[in-house]
C-alpha cells in the first residue's frame, strides 16, 4: 500500500520511538499522607505493594541498556523509601536523569545533599495547595504545609531544582493569588504548574467536597489567566483550568470564525504519551500510564521491556487511538466543536465512562457551556 494511500486511510500519529525515552515509575505504594483528592489511593486497579530495591536495580539496568534518558519517580511518596539513595544510585549508574514527585514533607538535608551530588536531578516537584497551613492542610492533613515549605527550603539550600505543583480544588480556588505570591515572590521560585483535582482514586470518595463546580472552574480560569499575565511565563499547566481555558478559547474562536479543523482536531489525538513513554506501578506491573493503571502490559524483570514496548497489542491499540474520529461517539453527536476537539485524557475518559477509547466528558467544552459555564 503506498504511503499516500495509507495517509488517506489512517492519519499519521506521533512517531513511535524504538524504545521508551522516559518512564514514570511509582517507586512505592506507601505515603505518609492521605490527601483527599489523591488519584493514587483507593484505585481498585492498583496493587499496593512495594518491591525490594534489588528488583528495581535490575530493572534500571535494563533501562540503561535501552538508552532510556529520563525517569520520573513518584508513588505514593518516594521519599518514604529508606533506600531511595540506593535506587537513585542505580539510575545514575545507568546514565539516566531523574525527577521526583513529592509532598515535600520527608525531605531532609541528607537526601537533598545526595540528590544534588548526583548532578542528574532534573527537578523535585513539591505539591503546595495553599498560601497558608489552613488552606493547604484542608486536603493534605495537619502539619503538611509547614513541612512542605521546609522541604522546599531544604532543596533550595542544596541547589536542587524545585518545581511546585498546585492542585486546585474547592478549598483553595479563592486562594490562588496568595499562592502565586507565596511561591513566586516569597519563595522566589522560577514558576509553578497547576492542575485541578480529577475524578480519580480517593477524589471519587470526596468529590462533593473537593471537585470544582462550574462556577468555581470559571473562577479558577479567570484567576489563572490574570495571574499568567501578571507573572509572565511563570505559571504553566498541562491539564486543569488553565489548559482548559486556553484550549476552549481557541476552539470557540475557531468555531465563531468558521475556521478549518485543527490539524489534530476531530479525533482522539490528545494523548501522545504512548509513543515516547511508559509507566510502571509500584508492584512492578508495566502500564501505559498511571492514569491507566488497570492496563497491565507485562511485568518488570519478567517481560523484556523492549518486547512490551514494541509488540504489546494493547499498547499498540492505544497508539492507534488518534485514528478514531469523534463523530463515532454518541456523546459528541451534533457537536459544533468536533473539528477543533482532541478528546483529552484517555485515563479520565476511562474513569468516567469505563472506556479508554472515548472522549473525556471532563474536558468537554459543549458540556461545560450547557452546564452554565462561560469562557471568560
Amino acid at each position, binding site marked *: 500500500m503506498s504511503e499516500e494511500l495509507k495517509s488517506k486511510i489512517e492519519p499519521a500519529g506521533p512517531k513511535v*520511538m*524504538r*524504545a521508551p*525515552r522516559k518512564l514514570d515509575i511509582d517507586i512505592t505504594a506507601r505515603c505518609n499522607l492521605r490527601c483527599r483528592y489523591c488519584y493514587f489511593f483507593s484505585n481498585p486497579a492498583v496493587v499496593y505493594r512495594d518491591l525490594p530495591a534489588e528488583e528495581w536495580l535490575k530493572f534500571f539496568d535494563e533501562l540503561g541498556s535501552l*538508552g532510556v*534518558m529520563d525517569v520520573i519517580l513518584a508513588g505514593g511518596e518516594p521519599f518514604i523509601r529508606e533506600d531511595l539513595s540506593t535506587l537513585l544510585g542505580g539510575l*545514575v549508574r545507568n*546514565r*539516566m*536523569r531523574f525527577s521526583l514527585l513529592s509532598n515535600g514533607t520527608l525531605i531532609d538535608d541528607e537526601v537533598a545533599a545526595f540528590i544534588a551530588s548526583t*548532578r*542528574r536531578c*532534573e527537578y523535585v516537584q513539591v505539591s503546595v495547595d495553599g498560601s497558608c497551613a489552613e488552606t493547604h492542610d484542608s486536603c493534605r492533613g495537619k502539619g503538611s504545609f509547614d513541612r512542605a515549605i521546609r522541604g522546599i527550603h531544604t532543596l533550595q539550600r542544596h541547589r536542587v531544582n524545585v518545581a511546585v505543583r498546585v492542585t486546585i480544588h474547592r478549598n483553595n480556588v479563592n486562594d490562588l493569588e496568595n499562592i502565586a505570591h507565596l511561591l513566586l515572590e516569597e519563595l522566589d521560585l522560577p514558576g509553578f504548574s497547576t492542575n485541578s483535582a480529577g475524578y480519580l482514586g480517593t477524589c471519587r470518595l470526596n468529590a462533593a467536597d473537593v471537585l470544582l463546580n462550574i462556577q468555581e472552574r470559571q473562577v479558577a480560569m479567570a484567576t489563572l489567566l490574570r495571574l499568567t499575565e501578571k507573572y509572565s511565563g511563570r505559571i504553566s499547566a498541562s491539564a486543569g483550568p488553565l489548559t482548559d481555558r486556553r484550549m476552549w478559547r481557541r476552539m470557540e474562536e475557531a468555531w465563531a470564525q468558521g475556521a478549518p479543523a485543527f490539524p489534530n482536531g476531530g479525533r482522539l489525538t490528545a494523548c501522545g504519551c504512548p509513543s515516547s513513554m511508559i509507566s510502571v506501578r509500584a508492584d512492578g506491573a508495566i502500564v501505559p500510564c498511571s492514569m491507566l493503571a488497570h492496563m497491565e502490559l507485562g511485568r518488570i524483570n519478567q517481560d523484556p521491556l523492549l518486547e512490551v514496548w514494541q509488540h504489546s497489542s494493547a499498547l499498540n491499540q492505544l497508539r492507534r487511538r488518534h485514528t478514531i474520529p469523534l463523530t463515532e461517539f454518541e456523546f459528541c453527536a451534533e457537536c459544533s466543536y468536533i473539528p477543533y476537539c482532541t478528546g483529552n485524557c484517555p485515563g479520565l475518559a476511562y474513569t468516567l465512562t469505563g472506556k479508554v477509547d472515548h472522549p473525556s466528558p471532563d474536558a468537554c467544552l459543549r458540556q461545560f457551556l450547557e452546564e452554565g459555564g462561560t469562557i471568560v
Partner: protein
Amino acid sequence: MVFLNTLTCVVAKRAVPGMNRTDRPIANPIVVLREEFDDWAVLFNPDTADAVGTNPVGVAVWKRMDGKRSLKEIVLEIKTQF
C-alpha cells in the same frame, strides 16, 4: 562529516593543542547512544542533559571509537560501509 564536540569528547591525533593525543579514539563513556528505527541516533549526556542527533554515519563512527581502532582505520571502514 560527523559532528564532534565536547559532548563526545573524542580524542585524536592532531587534536586541540594541549590535550592528550592518541590516534585510537574512545567514545565518552558517560554519553549514551540511543538508537532509533531509522538508523539515526541521539547522543545524550546525562550529566548536562545535552542531546544531539546524529545520522547513520555518525552512529557508525561512534560505535567504532572503542580505543582499538585508529582514526585511519575508522575512516577506511566508514568509506567502505558508506
